[in-house]
């Protein structure tokens, strides 16, 4: 394989972002065309990244230019595929919303692509400072996207909160890196791993402090306790497409780097953060559940419930120290959550594209009679979020809980199961609203245009979710990856971290 093949996906996305930026200068170039162009670039990038999929490799191409700052392995490749697919789905599902809203201009897609570029770099980062730069590229793009909604007076609060807090927590990260550099005189992940392995614990005090600070950044970005408070306000103020993007794609990107760092470099320090993470998980689950229960707006409920899902992910994350298999379950859960969250948020965006009111639980009343297809799709997404069997969400939960219990975290697992039990309440409440209430009078006159790309993309996501849950077992003769196939891919990806 030529070296250029490895960096092509990242390059394609970068070029796509630049091209879109120039195109957006022309007013006559419509949103529809922007969508087409960005979709083409993303498909191209996806094609480049699928090309080496499944092979086990780890490479440091163009060492003389890149100084080993970026690593290209199966793991990064896996995340690149997930990130590109996620962005692609956000764009396609959001097609309806984007064309109905005047505030979405051509730059939107350019910035989205820049953000994706940052995230892909983050997945490939092999060094702490590079990771920071990549993270900031992604974050800054998202800051702008959050403030895109000029119709919404809440956007100022959202963007300001996110920007200030994000910058603040970025300082923590840098301080952590400085401390680690001071102790070890390197920021390279591989060299750090050797340093930690060859030194006694008593010599590593600064490294421990540094890692704790880095852990703060991680926890802030994935919105776990105690840094979860920004989520609801930011998610509310942002355009719903951006919310979908942040809740799904961005979260995957964050996990890509930090999981790599913690698996590859700091595994021996498991005992140190075990108690911290235990408490964080307990509070994340509790607070997320509490917030989700008290929301009246569906978008906020989904946002709050994403905190609970972060709790499940952390549950598998804490188990990584005990058995490496739980890293597989994290990756699988991320895929499952990526699909489901994009589906759920995207569907809400599709519904509110033409009206401005369908945001609360009450507004969903009678959706099943008006638009039975969308109601059925939403039901599939909610089932998957709640982990009901026959969806991919169930399989993902099964993996996470199996690995957590296997690693000995039985009480945490029981606590997470209780959170799941409560989550059934707020997810099923929405299903009850859609199916069991007569429709609202005020919406009767509206005509809906449901044969468009958004709808097909939503259907595609729903099919993927059911496919992952049961379809691959029933229709085993169709030769595309089944859940076992995905799991094998995940396995190869994580194992590529330890290739020498």
């Amino acid at each position: 394989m030529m070296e250029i093949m490895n960096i092509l996906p990242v390059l394609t996305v970068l070029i796509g972002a630049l091209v879109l930026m120039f195109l957006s200068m022309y007013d006559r170039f419509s949103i529809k065309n922007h969508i087409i162009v960005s979709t083409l670039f993303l498909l191209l990038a996806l094609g480049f990244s699928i090309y080496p999929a499944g092979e086990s490799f780890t490479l440091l191409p163009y060492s003389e230019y890149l100084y080993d700052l970026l690593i290209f392995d199966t793991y990064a490749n896996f995340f690149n595929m997930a990130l590109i697919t996620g962005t692609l789905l956000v764009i396609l599902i959001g097609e309806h919303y984007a064309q109905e809203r005047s505030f979405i201009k051509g730059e939107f897609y350019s910035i989205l692509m820049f953000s994706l570029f940052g995230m892909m770099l983050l997945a490939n980062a092999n060094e702490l400072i590079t990771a920071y730069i990549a993270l900031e590229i992604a974050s800054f793009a998202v800051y702008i996207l959050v403030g895109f909604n000029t119709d919404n007076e809440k956007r100022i609060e959202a963007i300001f909160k996110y920007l200030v807090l994000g910058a603040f927590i970025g300082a923590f990260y840098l301080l952590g890196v400085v401390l680690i550099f001071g102790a070890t005189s390197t920021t390279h992940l591989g060299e750090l791993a050797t340093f930690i392995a060859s030194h006694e614990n008593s010599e590593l005090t600064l490294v421990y402090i540094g890692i704790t600070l880095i852990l703060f950044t991680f926890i802030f970005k994935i919105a776990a306790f105690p840094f979860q408070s920004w989520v609801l306000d930011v998610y509310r103020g942002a355009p719903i497409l951006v919310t979908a993007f942040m809740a799904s794609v961005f979260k995957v990107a964050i996990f890509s780097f930090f999981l790599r760092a913690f698996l590859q470099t700091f595994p021996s320090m498991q005992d140190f953060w075990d108690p911290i993470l235990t408490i964080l998980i307990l509070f994340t689950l509790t607070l997320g559940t509490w917030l989700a229960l008290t929301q009246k707006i569906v978008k906020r409920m989904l946002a709050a419930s994403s905190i609970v899902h972060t709790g499940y992910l952390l549950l598998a994350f804490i188990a990584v120290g005990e058995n490496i298999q739980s890293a597989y379950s994290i990756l699988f859960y991320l895929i499952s959550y990526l699909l489901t969250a994009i589906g759920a948020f995207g569907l809400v965006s599709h519904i509110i594209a033409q009206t401005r009111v369908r945001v609360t639980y009450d507004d969903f009343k009678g959706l099943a009679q008006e638009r039975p297809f969308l109601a059925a799709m939403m039901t599939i997404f909610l089932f998957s979020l709640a982990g009901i069997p026959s969806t991919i969400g169930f399989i993902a939960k099964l993996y996470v809980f199996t690995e957590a219990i296997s690693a000995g975290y039985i009480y945490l697992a029981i606590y997470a199961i209780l959170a799941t039990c409560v989550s059934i309440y707020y997810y099923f409440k929405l299903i009850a609203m859609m199916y069991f209430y007569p429709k609202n009078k005020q919406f009767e006159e509206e005509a809906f245009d449901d044969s468009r790309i958004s709808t097909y993309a939503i259907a595609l996501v729903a099919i993927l979710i059911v496919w992952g849950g049961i379809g691959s077992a029933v229709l085993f003769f169709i030769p595309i990856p089944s859940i076992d196939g995905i799991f094998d891919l995940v396995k190869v990806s994580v194992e590529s971290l330890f290739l020498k």
Partner: protein
Amino acid sequence: MGTDILSFIIFLPAFVAFILMISTTKVEDVRNIAFITTIIILVLVLKIYLNYESNSDMQFVTNVPWILNYGINYYIGVDGFSLTILMMIAILIPTSYLLLWDGRTKGYWINMLLVQTGVTGALLSLDVILFYFFWEVMLLPVFLMIGNFGSGNKIFTTIKVTVYTMFGSLMMFVAIIYLGVAYFEEFGVWSFQYSDLTQITTFSYQEKFWLFLAFLTAFAIKIPLFPFHTWIMETYKNAPTGAVFLLSSIMAKLGIYAVVRFMIPLFPDIYIQFSSWFVFIGLFGLIYFGIAALMQDDIKRMFAYSSASHLSFIAAGIFSLNEYGIGGALYLVIAHAIATGALFLLIGVLYDQTGLKTIKDLGGIAKQAPIFTLIFAIMLFANVGLPGTNGFVAELLIIFGVYEFNHIMGYISAVTVLVAASFMLWMFQRAILQKKEGPALKMRDLKVKEIIGLAPWVILVFLMGVYPEPFMDKFEPSITHYLTDILHIGATK
């Protein structure tokens, strides 16, 4: 097809349901096709029933990998226990269609089909994850049915029943995973087949006890056992007839079945040790729910309590550790399913006609609808266990079983069965026979279709009551197998 006949039985209804969902909108077509589907299944099950050899082995087994990485298999099979219940489900569902025939919507029939897939799947699966899969899935159509077609405060009821039962299932889910992990740690490979999980030897007493409780939570909520019964009153009162029928005469029985299938083999020593507690709880439930039933004025609520009362009695039989008790319990599962199912459906007819469901408003039905009254009476007698009906055989066996387990409890159970008889007959007298003051109620008699639907049940009531041997023969070997090979206490016969 050959050996895979069981998979066909499981998935045919769901397959038909999906086809119907996207193809047609005419309610009559949907109903007719659904009905034909259930008849096909009945024929297939009958074929299995006749081909089944009376021994304790699993038969018609299919075992193929589903999720390789965790050793989760699609593993189904049938033995004496599940066969008897399978036969019961296959007979009950099509005939219930005949009583629900008119005035339903498309969604109603599709949900009925989906439930059938769920319950037969749960009944036949021998891999615990697969079992959990179907166990959860079978709840969803009922959720939709109650929410869509229920009455009263239906949304609250729907959410309540869902969260309640999901809570139990999720506790079981943790226990299942715990078992799987323990198996992996002991043997180095993943497996969730129940026959493999019974091999685990590393558990401490404490662990087994908690796992036992976790499984029990799931099943006790579904059955329901005291004190996990608080969901059923609201649910049975507000749910549509079809859903009540499914919950009471089929899903509750699956709870009982699951206790026998999974809890006895997995935790035999805990089971033996705590059996006296559960016999006590069962008898307590029998009395408690019986007295509660006496107080009810809403006829559906009354039957909800009476159903719970009988199911507690069944549980007492299951935990009595001898062949009489377990055999009788299984027999009562069938008898009770037929009787309660019929009664709930008849009450559905009564409610559709008169619009009334409180006992004090009703009356004078006997004069208006003699055939209705006759069948109602037969089912009522079967329910209270009058000699000559199947209920009598079953209750007698359970009383024997409990007596053998503990003499005093035996006496108590014999006396308290009378409570059940009293509230049933009192209700019958007030609601059906007694002359009503004021204008007579509008009530048509049963249609021919409905009589045809109920005829097999009536025949079964008497056939099983007078000549129980052929039915017993099918599950007798399985019970002996459970008692001698798994519990090591020897059959008492």
